[in-house]
Each structure stands twice: as C-alpha cells, then as structure tokens.
C-alpha cells in the first residue's frame, strides 16, 4: 500500500478518535464544572444532612459554585461537619445561610447558599454561622399528624 495513502487513513483514524474524545469531554461530560481554576474551603455544621453525598453540588441561586468535598461526624457535638470546596470566583458574605435542599421531589440533595448582607467575606477555613438541616420526610409527616391530632382534641 502507498505510504502516503496509509498516512492519510491513519491520520483520519487518529483525528476521528480525538474528535470522539472531545465529544465525550464537552458534550457528554462537563469539563468546566469539573475543575475550578482555584478553590477555597468552607465548613458548615448541620444537625442532619439527610442524603447529602460527597461530590454533591453547592449552589447559590441555582448556579453551581462548588462541590461537597468531605462529610464527617463531630464525635463530641454529634453534628455533621460538611466541608465545601468553593470556586475562587465566588465570595460570600459572613452571614451567608447554608441549607440542605433537594432538587425536585425525589432528586439529589445539594447545599444551597443564600448570601447575606455582611460586608466582610468568608475566608478559607471559615465556618458558616447559620445553617438549616435537611428536611426528613418522616419527621415532617409525623409533625403534621401530631398537629392534626392536637387540633382534634382541642375542639
């Protein structure tokens, strides 16, 4: 076989392979959200994290600003300590409110950040002052039932 033709076909094959890789990286996966340029870490303490997982998203106003990088239990206070890795481009005020929310009715759980009005910003290693734990469906239902029951007795 002619060597030039051979080079052409092999070049075609290699280019096609790299196009496929590019398609996987850009269209199937999401490169931009996977590697933030620079990050800093914040810590939030929750009474209950529900179904939050490591690598779960951290969102502010619905936009992904970071990922959950570590979840552990504080053995003295029995609180869940969640470490969040946030993109450097996003700075949050000191009184930002961190809560665990659910995407959709049965979707994955994520950490939502509601920015406050403080002029000082949270720095690397800071702890959120105010947090709200995950809503546990069973607790909600039992609370509802309990309220209904107490309404019934008062009448």
């Amino acid at each position, binding site marked *: *076989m002619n*060597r030039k033709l*051979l*080079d052409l*076909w*092999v070049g*075609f*094959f*290699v280019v*096609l*392979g*790299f196009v*496929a*890789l590019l*398609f*996987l*990286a850009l*269209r*199937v*996966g*999401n*490169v931009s959200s*996977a*590697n933030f340029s620079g990050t800093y870490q914040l810590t939030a303490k929750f009474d209950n994290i529900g179904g939050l*997982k*490591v*690598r779960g998203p951290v969102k502010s106003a619905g936009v992904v600003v970071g990922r959950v990088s570590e979840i552990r239990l504080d053995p003295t206070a029995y609180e869940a300590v969640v470490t969040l890795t946030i993109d450097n481009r996003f700075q949050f005020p000191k009184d930002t409110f961190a809560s665990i929310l659910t995407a959709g009715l049965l979707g994955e759980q994520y950490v939502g950040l509601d920015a406050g009005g403080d002029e000082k910003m949270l720095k690397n290693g800071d702890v959120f002052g105010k947090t709200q734990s995950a809503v546990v469906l069973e607790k909600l239902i039992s609370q509802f039932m309990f309220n209904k029951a107490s309404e019934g007795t008062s009448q």
Partner: protein
Amino acid sequence: MLEKSFSAVTAFIQGVGHRVNGALQRLGFAARFFVMILVYSGQSFRRLHLTIREIYFSGFQSLLIILVSGLFIGLVLGMQGYETLQRYGSSDALGVLVALSLVRELGPVVAALLFASRAGSSITAEIGLMKATEQLTAMDMMAVNPIARVVAPRFWGGVISMPLLAALFSAVGVFGGYLIGVVFIGVDEGAFWSQMQGSVDFRYDIWNGIVKSFVFGVAVSLIAVFEGFDAVPTAEGVSASIKRTVVNSALAILALDFVLTSFMFRGL
C-alpha cells in the same frame, strides 16, 4: 496396595508441580518479553512508518466493527433504559444511564473484547506464521532484531489504537442512545443532554474510562504478540496460540476491569 496409592498421590502432586512450573515459566518469559519490547521500542520508533502501518491494520481496519457495535449497544441501552426508567417516571435520566454505562464500563470493555478478537487474533496469526515459516530466524541471521522490527510496532499500534477505539465506541453509543431516546421515543432533548452533563464528570468518569482502555490495550497487545512469538511453529501450534490469544485476552480484560473498577469507583 498402600504403595500403589502412594505412588498415585505422588504422580498427582508431580503433575500439579509440572503445570505450575510451566505456567510460571511462561509468565516469566512473558514478563521478560514485555521488558524486551520496551527496550527495543526506541529502535522501532526510529522507523515510525512501521508503527503507523500497524495502527492502520489494527486500528483503522477495526473502525467498522467498533462503530457498528457501539451504535447497536447504544440503541439497545436506550431502549432497555427507557423501559426501566419510565416505570419510575424518571425517563429524563436516560442520558445519564446511557452515558455513564458506556463511558465507565461498556466502552472500554466491549471495545477491548472486539479489538482482541478482531486485531489481536490477526497479530498472533501473523507473528506465529512468520515464526513457522522461519522469517523471524531469517531476520535474526540478517542482524535485524525481530522484536524491534516485527513485535514492537504491532504492540504499540495496538496500545495507541485501543483508547481511540474505546472513545469512538462510547461516543457512537451515546449517539445511539440519543437516537432511540430523543428521536424515536421522544424524551425531552434538553433534559437528556443537561442531566447527562450534570452527572458525567470528566476527571472521574471519562478519564478513568480512558485509563481503563489504555490498560486493556497494553494487556491485549502484549498477549497477542507474546502468543504469536511463543507459538509452536506448526499449523496446529499457530491455531492453538490464536485460540489462546482470544481466550486469555477476554479473561485478562474482564479480570483487569474488575480490579480497576474496584480501585476507581468505590462509591466514596
């Protein structure tokens, strides 16, 4: 009586020892052979067209079977995935299912299995026949190193082709899933792609899939060239070594896949 049964037991143990010895010797030879390939790679890369020729034969010529199988696997995944997901009312997650199963597992593994039977067997047949017709010995006589001239280009051709073929397999498979899910069944196109992009991570999913296919490429190519080089130089011997290439490659791929998966995806 006792002596007879005693000698039967020794014969059995002797048989086991003989087999283990033989297997270990072959394994040792394969390891030395691998090192030899790496040592003589530089020499063979100086004549790059040899490797390019092998990429053509094992990579480019496998394109058709890889693309067609990838498309059909994607189509089937789309149908089966939809059938199961719609029971739970979450057919929007079809893209996630198709993309993750292809990129993490099916792409690297099935592409490597196809590659082993399509390209690995032909490499073994080629080298085995060269040995049977004493072409390798003739090269040695002419002071041409057969490992640098014949083995190393085929090995590197396979190693370079394999990740590209696996990526093409996954990409075509995702397209097949899109074809069935969005075009035929009518899953929402925006949800299909955005959910997929939301849950497929480049570093974690795609990169690990590429690493897998690279490891499979090394394993399949090494088995193929080794079995060819180690073939008994008769028609029967070459056919037996082709059979061993296909069987051993398949087993190696599946075993390595288990090991790699347990290291890569532990669910954290």
